[in-house]
């Protein structure tokens, strides 16, 4: 499997605070990869290291096969990037900013720029400082797509957009990037967006990778089985591989499963029971389960 992004024990320390702690990330080429975690979990720092804006304290990383420390210039030539808050030169007009950015890249799709600025109805002759947040995001997306990048790295790209614009945004990313062997790597809090378009996700908490899997696997394997057995299950029943947590609930149990779901479910059904029920987990449930916790009110 060719990896678009790979990090090996990537660490970034700021004065003994570990913003990123031994991160081992693998993003397959051609995938749409969701990078999920609470605020301050190290997502932006990781992205900055991938781009060469920040240097790692230790560990390695490769983007499109290139080393993030030694080849960061070449990496940036092949990547489209959108920062969480697109801070661009406010005094420039959209047109001027586009012309400015164009000069940095070996290739640039003028046609794409024209197509999407018309689609978005962007007033390119106006100063960027006069644009709304949504328009700035749209402009930033155009600038990220124009160099025909092999990898698109987006940090919270759709926050600040209304629901209609969000769908439009994702749609454009799907159209331009997916299905052509290119990769999308994005961090987002808007889990519904992630659920729609991502084929793999990674959960990060306190700078560490907590879980990474394909979206489909998460949806088919991460379940909670609510069971009320007629009598206590035999010892070892709950030690089955794939069961990650068992909680008592009144007379019954809540069995949290992360793998081997079908097997475990069959086993539960075979036991004499009053009730066996499957509770599906959506991405929001998983997010809370994997990266929530410390600061719960």
């Amino acid at each position, binding site marked *: 499997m060719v990896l678009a992004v790979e990090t090996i024990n990537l660490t970034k320390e700021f004065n003994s605070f570990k913003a990123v702690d031994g991160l081992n990330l693998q993003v397959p080429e051609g995938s749409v990869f969701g990078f999920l975690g609470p605020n301050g979990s190290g997502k932006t720092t990781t992205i900055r290291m991938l781009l060469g804006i920040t240097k790692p304290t230790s560990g390695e990383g490769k983007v499109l096969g290139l080393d993030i420390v030694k080849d960061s210039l070449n990496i940036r030539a092949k990547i489209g990037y959108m*920062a969480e808050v697109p801070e661009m030169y406010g005094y420039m007009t959209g047109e001027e900013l586009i012309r400015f950015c164009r000069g940095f*890249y070996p*290739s640039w799709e003028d046609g794409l720029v024209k197509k999407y600025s018309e689609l978005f109805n962007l007033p390119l002759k106006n100063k960027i400082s006069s644009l709304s947040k949504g328009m700035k995001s749209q402009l930033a997306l155009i600038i990220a797509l124009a160099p025909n990048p092999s990898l698109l790295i987006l940090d919270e790209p759709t926050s600040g957009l209304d629901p209609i614009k969000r769908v439009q945004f994702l749609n454009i990313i799907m159209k331009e990037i997916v299905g052509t062997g290119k990769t999308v790597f994005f961090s987002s809090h808007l889990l519904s967006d992630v659920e729609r378009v991502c084929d793999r996700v990674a959960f990060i908490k306190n700078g560490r990778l907590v879980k990474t899997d394909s979206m489909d696997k998460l949806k088919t394997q991460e379940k909670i089985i609510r069971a009320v057995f007629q009598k206590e299950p035999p010892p070892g029943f709950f030690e089955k591989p794939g069961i990650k947590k068992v909680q008592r609930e009144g007379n019954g149990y809540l069995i949290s499963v992360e793998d081997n779901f079908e097997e475990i479910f069959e086993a539960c059904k075979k036991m004499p029971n009053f009730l066996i029920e499957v509770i599906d987990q959506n991405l929001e449930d998983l997010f809370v389960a994997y990266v929530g916790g410390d600061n719960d009110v």
Partner: protein
Amino acid sequence: MWPMWEVTMMFSITLFKKEVRESRWKIIIGLIIFIITAVSIPFTFKYVKELLPMIPELPGLEGFDRYLANYNIYTWSQWNGKNLYQVGTILAIIVGMNLIAGEKVSKTLEFLLARPISRSSLYFTKFSAGLLSLGLVIFGSTVFLYILSVIMGYELLAGDLFISTLITFIGFIFIFTLTFLISTVLDEPVKVGLLSAFVLLLLAIPGWFQKTRQLSVFHHMSAAEYFLEGKFPFLPLLAVLLLSAGMYYVGIRIFEKKQP
């Protein structure tokens, strides 16, 4: 489209254009101020020469008449010897203080660093743009001064004027590089300007005393030795250039590690 791509390895044309554009008001206003100053020289020469015998001896004006001996020396005393390096220092600080700190304040540094440009070429491009802006103002106004003087019928030695201005400009390189370095360290342009001015003030102190005058950049910048004594100050200028190179090197090391 892209023979330019190889050029961006050391130097970025698109960034250079942006920097010059961002500095355009500094260039324009700088030129206006210097041109006005330049204009004053041929005009005041005649009147001051006439007035001087009529004014009673004033302290501080003794020996002034030697600067009125001929137009050349008068020009030097007013231009390189005074106005150019004084106002020019302020201009060099103003041009330099914004270059890195300004990007930090407007939060655009990250945007810039996310482009495929190496930190060293980013640094070099900004540095060059600043120097070019300064050069345009300094040499542009000097050329203007020369042309105006000739038009008004004065005799001015072009070679001397040019070399003196070149010497002064080398001093500006020092001042600019110092400010540029401070702009890399501090995050607010105004703070940068003030610190730079303060440091330069300290560096000017040796120039006030006869014994330590050789240690002052400003003394050498004024091209006094060259103009008055005909000695081209090779060694001092070399020292100034080496110090500037040293500051540039320190600046680039700091910039390589800077977090946007």
